[in-house]
Every structure is written in structure tokens, then in C-alpha cells.
């Protein structure tokens, strides 16, 4: 056990911190998951890639760093420390890329992995539908085989980055007659294809970071199937496991930034903070526990290449801590909390999605119950 940075990590961290200080545009500080300032975000993402701070654990043959996941953790921690926004290609890097590596054809790997790393391709995720939220297996977006093509018709929702995306990982129903879980096919869809329409979905914050995607007779070559035709469920599960793998570091990064603000607020409002000191400290303690647990989980990822169940644990605890943190801050603000301060008001609303996005807390508890605790299935 060694809970300090190794020499390599310390050196890497110092270099990265200096690099961020020099390159991060002021306009992007504190942006969170918002996607305003698109051009700046694109440029920032490219610079991160060019400087070699992206895909550090990806194999060298795909243009990655071939290193341990620990360095990726360091990158996410340092970006959070600087209040820097996420890489625009986060879905490509965290979900599409690892899925293509695990199940893709050589052609798919050659076509997409490098552009994902170099922030040339922005990806979005087409999983949820109006009638298929937590219940992914009931997707109705149809993919009909016509010769060398699949013709896609349907609607997806809650798709971050879709309005900027070049490509989409899409779960479709290719065989409605097949038993549940066996009729799904996983496709890579060019978002610039005719028949793809993206409509922004305005959230309770007033922002529109999510989108609906409508597919009308969209033609997708059969060569864009990932895994087997009808084997889309297994491929989608790989995607979701990876979604929660290094997500822990990104999440604790956001929380870190919130807790720093909470502590700053407590310092400027010491009287208001008095009754809440235990709760304030508790969120800080939760954050440290989450960070340490994210590091503890890397052991398994580095050993087996597959993320362990800690991702679900971190996501669960993080989302609730994030919501409590916001409420605490608003307590400290007192009556002033009725005024939009540009952060906590936004955060109060935005954090309601935390227990819904990337797996609702109810679904995550089912996952931990069944896969970790080995309890009988609830359905």
C-alpha cells in the first residue's frame, strides 16, 4: 500500500498542473457539463489530446499511452482542481472507444479509435427512449435489414452532446420476434446521415445539454454493427460498465469543486454555518472517501481490464452527496438563496438529475444487490 503519488505520478501531476494553468481559457472555468462556448471547448479538447493527456490507458496500437488507469485518474483530478470542463469527446473516450476496442471489427477500430482520441470525432449515446429508460431491453427504435444496410427508424432521448456529435452508439431493435434481450443490435451511426434530426431538450435549469434524436429511414451499413446482429445487449452492457469505470474520478472532480465552494461560503458566512458544521464536514469526508474508493477500484481495472462494481457504489454515494451539498450551501445563503447567484441555484436544479442520469439510483441498487451481494433478482 502506498497512498502517495509514485515518482512518475507526482512528476506527471506537476507537469499537467502547469500545463492546465497555461492553457485553460478563463471562459471555460466552472462550466461543468454545460456545452456553451462550443468552439473554445473543441479547441481545448484538441489541445488536451495533442498534449497527450487523453487516452493514457488506451493501448499504444490505438494511439493511446499504454499506461495504467492511475494516470487517467490524475488527469481527471487535476482538471477538477482547476474547475476545467470535461473533454468534449467524453462519450467517445469513456464509452464508445472501450466498446469498440472490446467488440469492434478491425475496420471499426481503424476508423474510429484515433479520431476519438484526437477529438476529431465527437460521440453521443443513443440508448434511452421515451418508452425505454431504465428498461433498456424494451427499446423500440427499429433497424430493418435491407441487403447491406440497416434502415433505422425511431426516437432516442437524454442524449448529451448529440447536437455536436459526429457519431452515435445506437441500440436498436432488429428482431421484434426474438425473445427479450436477443433482438437488439448495436450500431455505429454517422450523425451526419440523411434522416437524422437532433432537437434540443430544454431542462429545468433552462439549459439544453440533452437532446432528442429522431431517426427517419436512416441508412447504416451492416459493417457498422458492433458485435453480433442480435447481440446488442451484451455490447451495451460493456458500454455501461465502462461508463461507470473511470466516471468515479470525473464525478468526484465535480463534487470537489462544489465542496470547495461550500467551504468558501462557510468561511464568509461563519454564523450561518455554525448549526451545519457537522453536515458540512460530512460532505467533505464523503468526498475523500469517494476519491479513495475510486483509487481503490483502479486495482481491479488494471488487473482485469474490466471495471469492478465500485463504479456503481461511487455513483450512488456521489449523487446523494452532490444533492446534499447544494442544499447545505443554500442553507448558508439564507434569504439570499432566493436570488440567482449563477451557481447554487443552477446546481440545486442540475443536481436533481444526478440520481437519474447514468443509471437511476434504484437501478444501481439493483445492480449492486444482484451482482455484488448476489441477492436474488428482483424481477
Amino acid at each position, binding site marked *: *500500500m*502506498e*497512498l*502517495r*503519488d*509514485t515518482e512518475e*505520478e*507526482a512528476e*506527471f*501531476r*506537476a507537469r499537467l*498542473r502547469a500545463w492546465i494553468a497555461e492553457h485553460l481559457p478563463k471562459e471555460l472555468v466552472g462550466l461543468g457539463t454545460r456545452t456553451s462556448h462550443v468552439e473554445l471547448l473543441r479547441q481545448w479538447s484538441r489541445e488536451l489530446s495533442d498534449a497527450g493527456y487523453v487516452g493514457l490507458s488506451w493501448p499504444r496500437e490505438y494511439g493511446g499511452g499504454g499506461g495504467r488507469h*492511475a494516470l487517467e485518474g*490524475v488527469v481527471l*483530478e487535476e482538471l477538477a*482542481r482547476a474547475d476545467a470542463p470535461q473533454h468534449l469527446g467524453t462519450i467517445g473516450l469513456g464509452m464508445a472507444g472501450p466498446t469498440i476496442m472490446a467488440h469492434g471489427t478491425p475496420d471499426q477500430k481503424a476508423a474510429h479509435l484515433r479520431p476519438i482520441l484526437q477529438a476529431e470525432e465527437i460521440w453521443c449515446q443513443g440508448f434511452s427512449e421515451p418508452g425505454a429508460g431504465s428498461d433498456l431491453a424494451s427499446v423500440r427504435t427499429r433497424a430493418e435489414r435491407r441487403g447491406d444496410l440497416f434502415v433505422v427508424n425511431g426516437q432516442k432521448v437524454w442524449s448529451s452532446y448529440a447536437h455536436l456529435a459526429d457519431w452515435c452508439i445506437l441500440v436498436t431493435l432488429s428482431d421484434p420476434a426474438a425473445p427479450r434481450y436477443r433482438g437488439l443490435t448495436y450500431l455505429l451511426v454517422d450523425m451526419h446521415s440523411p434522416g437524422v434530426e437532433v432537437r434540443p431538450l430544454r431542462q429545468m435549469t433552462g439549459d439544453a445539454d440533452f437532446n432528442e434524436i429522431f431517426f427517419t429511414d436512416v441508412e447504416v451499413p451492416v459493417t457498422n454493427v458492433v458485435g453480433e446482429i442480435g447481440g446488442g445487449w451484451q455490447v451495451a452492457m460493456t458500454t455501461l460498465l465502462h461508463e461507470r469505470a473511470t466516471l468515479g474520478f470525473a464525478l468526484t472532480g465535480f463534487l*470537489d469543486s462544489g*465542496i*470547495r465552494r461550500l*467551504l*468558501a461560503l*462557510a*468561511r464568509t458566512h*461563519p454564523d450561518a*454555518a455554525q448549526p451545519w*458544521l*457537522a*453536515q*458540512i*464536514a*460530512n460532505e*467533505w*469526508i*464523503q*468526498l*475523500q*472517501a*469517494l*476519491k*479513495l*474508493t475510486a*483509487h*481503490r477500484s483502479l*486495482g481491479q481495472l488494471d488487473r482485469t481490464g474490466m471495471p469492478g462494481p*465500485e463504479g456503481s*457504489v461511487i455513483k*450512488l*454515494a456521489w449523487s446523494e452527496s452532490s444533492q446534499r451539498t447544494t442544499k447545505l450551501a443554500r442553507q448558508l445563503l439564507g434569504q439570499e438563496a432566493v436570488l440567482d447567484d449563477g451557481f447554487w441555484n443552477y446546481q440545486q436544479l442540475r443536481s436533481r438529475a444526478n440520481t437519474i442520469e447514468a443509471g437511476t439510483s*434504484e437501478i444501481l*441498487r*439493483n445492480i*449492486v*444487490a444482484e451482482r*455484488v*451481494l*448476489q*441477492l*436474488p*433478482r*428482483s424481477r
Partner: protein
Amino acid sequence: MDFRFSDEQAQLREQARAFLERRLPAPALGQVLDSEAGWDPATWKEIADLGWLGVSIPEEQGGAGLGYLEEAILIEEFGRRLYSGPYLATVGLARPAIPEAALPDLARGAVRWSVCDGSGLAPNLHQVDMVVVVVEDRVSLAPARGEVLTSIDASRPMGRVDPTAGGEVIATGERAMQLRRKLRLRRLSALALEAVGLAQQVLEWGVEHARTREQFERKIGSYQAVAHPLVNSFVEIELARSLAYWAAWLLAEDQLDEVASPAAYALAADAAVNTCERVIQVHGGMGFTWESPLHRYYKRALWIQHFGGAPDLHRREVASQLMLSSEPGSAPLGSTSGGAQGGSQP
């Protein structure tokens, strides 16, 4: 940064678990605890022979020459089996104050120790030979004499010594304050480890019951109202475990971090009590019986939660440390976790 225990450490954990399973099997736990002595003194010699009393004592003084991280593993495992001898008192609590000359006797199991502050409350008093007495800026060593009290936890008997009775003074002034600080952080860390160990055992029993017990022709673990509280415990225990290992690692590195141990203690003590309460509920009426081991674990969890001080008071203290810190939110962990360490030591 590497959170893994070494192969030797993992082996030590397996040995400890196997020994305790064999010597104190769960079904016999009640028999030992309800006996007059409340523990099996023969185990002490066996533990000494296994080298577990002298883990951190240098080899030339009869120990194994290892450190607190190995002791931490044992404290957690002894907590898991609700060991009722003075292992936590001797190795977890008193160890940093025990003078070098007394270490060989400790290692071979000849002298057992406890510790008390100005309140005089000493765990396992009637099982031990010596007590470290910490009063204000004076640390002294006294023979274990005093009143035997009734503890809420029969597996952790209590006594009260007269802290003013005097004894051999081993530290005063600044040195005593430093030692006192060390004893406090060590106490909180050890209690956190013990809490994690017992909570894990209780969770496993809860899961086992939910997996096998049937009602309405279904395993009760298939009901989310039963499964989800168990998941909440799993989450709390995993988070507390990360903090407990972090705090232990810091102490093993001789870093007296003012927030890690209280943070670990606060989360672990609450996780242990919560887990016991949830698992008692999952067991229904059976969980309320004397026959079930759950009440014994619950009482230990409650003992921990009170003996270590109210978790929320520790949280308040962590808060005041954070308010003073110049780089809030990352400095205390940053100096130690790797989280932002590169910054403080570029």
C-alpha cells in the same frame, strides 16, 4: 498510488480469519461471552505465539518488526469476530505509550494493557495488568486496579481506575501532549477498523438471510425493500473502509493527520450502527432474539459509537480544521492521498 495490501498482508488477514473462525466459531460466541470470565484467556497465549501481539515490536525485542498496517488488519479481523479479550486495548489503544522496556513482555503475552483518560474509564480493565493513564499534560503508567463496571457490550467489559492515584510518569508537558495526540488518532483509527470489520460480518449475515429466507413463496432478498437497505450498508462500509485504510496508512507512516482518523471513525462508527440496525430489521423477529448473534454485534457497534465520542462532534472538529485550512477541500487529503499531492510537493 497503490491501495493494495501486499501478499504477506493478505496472508496475515487469511490466517487471522481462519484462527478466529476455528477458535471462536460464531455459534459458540454466545457461550464464551455469557461465561463468567467473558473471554477465553487461553487464546491470549495463542495469539502471542502467532506473533500478533508483537506485530510492530522490533525483532530484537521479541516482535515481528512490522508496522501499524499489519496491526490494522488484525484489529479489523478481531472486530469481525467480536473478540472479547484485550487485543484492541493492548495493541490498538495503549501500544504507542508502552515504554520500550515493557515491549518484550507484551510480545510474549505476559503483560496486557489498557488505557484511560481523566474519566478513568478503561476498556477490559479486569483482564489487563497495566493501564496507561492520560490526564491533561501528564502520561503515567499504573497497575490495573479499579472498579468493575457493567458495559453495554459484554464483549468489551469496562472498569474505572482512579486517574489521580498516581503511577510512573512517563511524559509531561509538550512530550505528553504529543503522545496524547498520537493516542487519540490511534484510538479513532483502531475503532474505525474494528467498526468496519464487524459491520462487514453483520452485512454478510444479512445478505445470507435475505438469500435463503422465503416469504410469499419468494426469497425475501428479491424484494427491493429488503435488498436496497443492504446495498446502502454495502456502500457505507466500502466508503468507511477506504477512509479506515487511509487513516491506518498515515499512522503507519507516522503522519499525525488531524482529520483522517476522525473522518474514518465518524463514517465507520455510523456505518456499523446503521448496518446492525438494518440487518436486525431484515431478520425480523429472529433478529430480536438473544440467540441471534446480532444483538452482540449491535452492542459492540453502539459501544464504539459512544466510546470514540459522538461522530457528529468529530465531524464538527473536522469542519473547524477545514475552515482554518488555506486550500479548502483538497489540502488535508491532498498532502497525503495523492489527490493533490503534486501541488504541495511539486
